[in-house]
């Protein structure tokens, strides 16, 4: 982002600084910290300190009752040799690959459609955004009903059309695609809103200029709209990948990580290690691995976007 010129008044330098002036200066220095204090306090209490504590616990054997027992890097060694950890990682990557590009592309299409003068435009925008506002447990429960083998609306529809029923959530092959479809339903609204805002901030004069030069609608989209949507695309990419990597509630409600381990994601595996088999140390080690993974992705994307900006 390029900085805009800022007009400031510089205080006249004086060797005899009065006490009141010094106090005012110090207060001016303190004010920004005062503004960010609530955020910093909450972040420290609920994100930063627990993170440090998780690193500490990951080197221990701890059931939550009694004292943690130091075991060095044994939790990490176990993780590297644990086929379930790798399965959960593969599932997480597969889920991200299934949800991120599709939700962004569909969100963009919807945003383009709803950026025109359409009847009931606001109503449609709210409708697509609705699943995101509702708790994931509620959307998950509704989706589990829709996908239900016995009385779900999807299977009822298939039977009406003469097709056979699909075991959406109880077949190891269909469970992940069903979750991806549900995630699309939830995430498309968010992508749409971000893209809508970005579309509306593109000045019309670019399109006018392109039209005068004889650019077709498709050409305008490729060479005007898409490049100017880059910051929004980058933001959505980072947010969507992070969301996909730490998805939990939707899957907990819909499949519980099953059938078998076909929908066990990393966060499911952390939950299971921590609260089903009471292995806090191991759960923390997997948590740190997930943290490193998300951090790595974010840094990579950050670098890529910085480079892209420099080229432009």
């Amino acid at each position, binding site marked *: 982002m390029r900085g805009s010129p800022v007009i400031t008044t510089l205080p006249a330098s004086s060797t005899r600084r009065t006490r009141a002036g010094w106090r005012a200066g110090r207060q001016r220095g303190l004010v920004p910290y005062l503004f960010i204090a609530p955020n910093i306090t909450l972040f420290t209490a609920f994100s930063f300190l627990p993170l440090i504590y998780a690193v500490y616990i990951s080197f221990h054997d701890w059931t939550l*009752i*009694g*004292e943690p027992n130091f075991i060095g890097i044994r939790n990490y060694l176990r993780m590297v040799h644990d086929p379930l950890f790798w399965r959960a990682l593969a599932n997480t990557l597969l889920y991200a690959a299934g949800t991120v590009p599709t939700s962004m592309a569909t969100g963009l299409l919807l945003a383009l459609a709803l950026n025109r003068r359409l009847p009931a435009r606001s109503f449609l925008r709210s409708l697509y955004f609705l699943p995101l506002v509702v708790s994931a447990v509620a959307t998950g*429960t509704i989706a*589990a009903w829709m996908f*239900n*083998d*016995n*009385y779900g609306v999807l299977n009822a529809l298939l039977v009406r059309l003469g097709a056979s029923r699909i*075991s959406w*959530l*109880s*077949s*190891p092959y269909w469970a992940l695609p069903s979750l991806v479809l549900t995630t699309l339903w939830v995430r498309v609204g968010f992508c749409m809103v971000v893209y809508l805002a970005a579309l509306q901030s593109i000045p019309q004069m670019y399109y006018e200029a392109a039209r005068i030069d004889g650019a077709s609608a498709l050409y305008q989209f490729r060479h005007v709209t898409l490049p100017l949507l880059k910051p929004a695309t980058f933001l959505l990419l980072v947010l969507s990948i992070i969301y996909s990597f730490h998805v939990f509630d939707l899957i907990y*409600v*819909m*499949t*519980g*990580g*099953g*059938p*078998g*381990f*076909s929908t066990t994601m990393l966060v499911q595996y952390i939950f*299971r290690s921590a609260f*089903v*088999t*009471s292995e806090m140390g191991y759960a923390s080690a997997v948590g740190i691995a997930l943290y490193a993974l998300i951090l790595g992705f974010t840094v990579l994307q950050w670098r890529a976007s910085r480079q892209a900006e420099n080229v432009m």
Partner: protein
Amino acid sequence: MPPSTSVKSSEQTQNLFANGTIGMLLGGDWQIPFLQQNMTKYKWDVTYMPRDVAMASDLGGNCLAISRDSKNQDVAADFLKFIVSEENMRAFVTAAQFLPVRTGLMNQELAYALRPEAMKIYVEQARTIPDHLVRTVTMPIFSKINAAMADELDLTFTSGQDPPTTAQNLDTKIKAVLGS
């Protein structure tokens, strides 16, 4: 067993029974309040579980325990004694449709709020729970054995894992838990 009712699925078998999709259910006494309230179109009753050479049953629920590192072990023990006293357990199980875990109460006629005649069969079936099962379920490491059993049986019922493999995996996993 239908894959959709496996342990990890979100399907509530009691719903399928209450709405008439399935005709029989391996269910628990705690489901009686739900059935009384929701199964309005059909009548239901309880019988003993299928048997071959011997009868047995499963055991579930939550355990009450005092941590070894507890600072106030005496107070905690007093509280546990209070919770499991005959009088309190009678009040709890009769109001909430649960089975008593005091042998003294199992031999008494308990005034259950709902379907007392069905509860009698549950109490009778509970007598067949073998002692070694009680000892296993109340082990502190049982949660790990339980997770291994849930995983392996789920793989068998939903993902086509054959029974010999399941038995072999369970043997390996349970031995690992016991050895750790």
